[in-house]
């Protein structure tokens, strides 16, 4: 029986991953004892005889409630006799924390402690037997000293690793933890171990509930930390590890949580996943869905209205927009009427506006370049959404995306989130449902394009005689073949692109025309077209027309259809019409 007890104790002593994990256990006990400060200090005690039997003393002092004889006899020196089990205001539960001091194989462990007007000294020997005696001088809290064999090199190593261990486990501790190397003549006194509790990232948010404090922020390299009274229980960058089945929600959200609901497993390897853990998870999810997401919406809305947004602020806006689209569609839909989408001209628009534009036009315009052209597009009542500049693209875990794909992806993702919300057809039957689902399938994709790739500023001009004859002939041929335009005119391009188009199209001949085949023609309505009179192909056809009018006409008509990519099956009809209209000299 005694052998088994000794074995159990041995297992408990060595169960933790590092012998220095006793710091965590003792600081935990100190916090549970109501101490607001824990002072850790090391001193080197050289062997006075010079036999090389130097000693290292590790001190852990707290100012909590301390221990009286009853606690010493029935809890300190007895395993598994914690009175803290199930107490949500305490970190320790098992009554095994103190034995961890033996993992370092100390020569002795001295405890001085006081409570209720009793002051005691307990001395543990190497074999873990102990003696206790009353003290006559008052002692506050509990002061523990470990005496370890070790030379100066071991001391230096211990100083370094002690500080590192304390920072790992105690940097967010509710109690102020200090560390001091008293053998260092340059020491400037106790050094604080604590750091402010929070997380790095965008929209950093804190949420407090009774016994729980949550810090969250959006991050492209999120880490996750779980704490009780500020003592580290687990830290990881593996979202699966941290959140299991809830991991999707936190792939781009860094979280640190201090909670009375969280506790270590007996082996301290991880967080105990019990009912209380589920309560903590529910609070974290609620914090992400409410406060963090609201903060994101708020910051986006604030940045969306700033007229000239540049540099890091603009970059931040697009990062935030990318993050917004990564949020659950239900949340996005809830906020679909918030004006958070920057436009190049005019007020910010809402995701709902985006949805409406996309639904009507089948595409939306996004560009980083504000120009006369985008202003004209805007004046015509078509919104142009702000896109990001090179290097600013951001899309969560998928990494940076070069421009303007970042904003485009965001816009597309927003569209998808909003489009998936329409529940109408599911309540319909038969033919109506079929028709609506068909329409929805058509509208479930959206083109996100740069208006500069679509539109061209032009001067509608009066063609000279040769040009006019060719244009009229081509218009007649196309009409005869059933592929005519509402009007076929001539134009000169302003700011022509590198590859000048042969012609542009639009609902009518106007200063802003679309590059074929970009125009989305309204159903059952033929567009107007304006041929670029400066285009080399047109110039050649004009030159050919007097000699071989049918061929020139056919070539122009065919080129128009080819570029517009429509009605190509009418080729033979066009050829026939050309011959009929202009004779057979083709």
């Amino acid at each position, binding site marked *: 029986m005694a052998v088994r007890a000794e074995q159990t104790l041995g297992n408990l002593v060595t169960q933790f991953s590092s012998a220095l994990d006793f710091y965590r256990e003792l600081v935990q006990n100190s916090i549970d*004892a*109501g*101490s*607001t*400060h824990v002072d850790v200090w090391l001193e080197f005690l050289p062997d006075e005889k010079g036999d090389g039997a130097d000693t290292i003393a590790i001190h852990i002092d707290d*100012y*909590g*409630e301390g221990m*009286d*004889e*009853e606690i010493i006899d029935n809890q300190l020196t007895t395993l598994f006799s914690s009175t803290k089990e*199930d*107490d*949500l*205001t305490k970190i320790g539960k098992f009554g095994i924390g103190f034995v961890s001091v033996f993992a370092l194989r100390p020569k002795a462990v001295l405890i001085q402690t006081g409570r*209720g*007007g*009793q002051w005691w000294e307990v001395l543990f020997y190497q074999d873990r037997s102990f003696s206790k005696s009353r003290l*006559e*001088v*008052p*002692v*506050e*809290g509990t002061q523990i000293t470990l005496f370890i064999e070790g030379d100066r090199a071991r001391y230096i190593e211990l100083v370094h690793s002690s500080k590192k261990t304390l920072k790992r486990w105690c940097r967010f501790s509710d109690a102020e933890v200090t560390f001091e190397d008293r053998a260092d003549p340059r020491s400037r006194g106790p050094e604080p171990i604590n750091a402010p509790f929070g997380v790095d990232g965008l929209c950093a948010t804190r949420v407090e*509930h*009774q*016994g729980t404090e949550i810090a969250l922020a959006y991050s492209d390299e999120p880490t996750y930390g779980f704490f009780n009274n500020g003592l580290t229980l687990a830290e990881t960058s593996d979202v699966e590890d941290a959140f299991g089945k809830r991991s999707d929600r936190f792939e781009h959200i860094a979280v640190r949580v201090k909670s*009375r609901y969280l506790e270590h497993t007996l082996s301290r390897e991880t967080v105990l996943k019990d009912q209380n853990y589920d*309560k903590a998870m529910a609070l974290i999810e609620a914090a992400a869905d409410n406060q963090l997401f609201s903060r994101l919406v708020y910051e986006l809305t604030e940045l969306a209205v700033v007229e000239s947004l540049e540099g890091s602020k603009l970059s931040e806006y697009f990062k935030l927009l990318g993050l917004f689209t990564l949020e659950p569609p239900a949340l996005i839909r809830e906020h679909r009427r918030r004006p958070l989408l920057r436009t190049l001209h005019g007020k910010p628009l809402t995701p709902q506006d985006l949805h409406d534009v996309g639904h009507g036009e089948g595409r939306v315009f996004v560009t980083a370049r504000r120009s006369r052209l985008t202003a004209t597009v805007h004046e015509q009542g078509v919104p142009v959404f702000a896109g990001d500049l090179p290097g600013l693209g951001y899309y969560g875990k998928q990494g940076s995306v070069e421009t303007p794909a970042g904003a485009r992806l965001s816009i597309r993702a927003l569209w998808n989130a909003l489009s998936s919300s329409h529940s109408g057809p599911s309540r319909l039957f038969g033919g109506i449902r079929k028709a609506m689902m068909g329409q929805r399938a058509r509208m479930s994709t959206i083109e996100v394009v740069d208006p500069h790739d679509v539109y061209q500023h032009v001067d509608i001009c009066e063609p000279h005689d040769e040009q006019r004859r060719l244009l009229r002939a081509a218009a007649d041929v196309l009409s005869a073949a059933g592929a005519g335009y509402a009007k076929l005119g001539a134009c000169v391009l302003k700011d022509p692109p590198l590859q000048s188009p042969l012609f542009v199209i639009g609902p009518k001949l106007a200063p802003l025309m679309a590059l074929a085949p970009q125009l989305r023609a309204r159903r059952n309505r033929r567009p107007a077209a304006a041929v670029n009179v400066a285009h080399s192909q047109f110039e050649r056809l004009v030159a050919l027309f007097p000699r071989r009018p049918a061929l020139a006409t056919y070539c122009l008509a065919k080129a128009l259809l080819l570029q517009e990519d429509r009605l190509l099956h009418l080729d033979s009809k066009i050829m026939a019409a050309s011959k009929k209209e202009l004779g057979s000299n083709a």
Partner: protein
Amino acid sequence: MKARIPAVRLEEPRSSWYVDWACSTLGRARLSRQYPDARLLSAHIECLGREFHLGLYDGLDVDLRSGLPTYKEWARVQSDHQIAPEALARLPDVDVLVERSRGREGSIHGKQLLKRHYYQSLLGKKLQSLSHMEVALRRVEPEHRTAYFHIIFDKLDATGILVRYSIDLSQRSAAFDRAIVTLDDDEAGHTEALRSMIFRFTSLDAEMTFAKLAVIEGVDVERVVKGVVGPFFFSDMDVPDPLQQALVEYPDGFVGTFALDMAALDVASDRDNDPLSTALAERLSPEAREEYQRARSRFGYKVFKDRKFVASSELRPCVDALCRGAGTRNLILIAAASARPR
């Protein structure tokens, strides 16, 4: 008619001296959670110093009964803290005020600039609440339909000292219709009845609070701890001998006292280790004393009183003598004004 609180106004440099010593003393005291939060107190007192308020206020009024700032001073910082965001929004930007006040000593813009700095510094401060109650659920025992709570109540007492009551008690669900503590899921709260009850007890001993709470139906009290910050002693005050004489010799001496008064089931034996306290039993009439003896036997609690001191080094022997004279053995820590963490 309201009785006038005895107070002394400390002018510069004495007010800065006081702030320095009070903060240093609080830092050195290493107060546990059974006392009001020393960090908040220290931050609060620091805001009363000229170095912080930049001369916007005249002097510092100290309550001569407690050696702590008067209620008016504590409350003034609190209200400034509350209005700081609004005040900052109203004041012009620093650059504007610097420009306007340049070369015009004592101008309104100069004062506005000081105010802006003052409110800005206040914004980030966490201060001591002058009356605050918190209830935390410790555990629930469904089989006994009982919930265990830890209650904390901080208050600036009418006598000018700062008090924290920590109470561990349990409440049976059968008594929840007359509850003093509420429980909604895991969220614990307090009733107004409890708050007003504890509020009244703050000038009394932990023992009396224990006895009063223990008679409430459905409530079992485990412990009542009263942690007290104050009085602080220095030469402007009327202080007990032999400190009085020592302060004549060392007018810059300073002593902070921190009392702990505990009535609890887990106290091993009754003991009074507070050289400044007069045990409740000694103040009571013989009949009342008997009644409290009966309460001790009925509820099974014992009482322990203690006090620790933080003193400037020259006053340590004197504090030592005070304790010896009272037959107590107390922790006496040494503080230095310059040791105050900033």
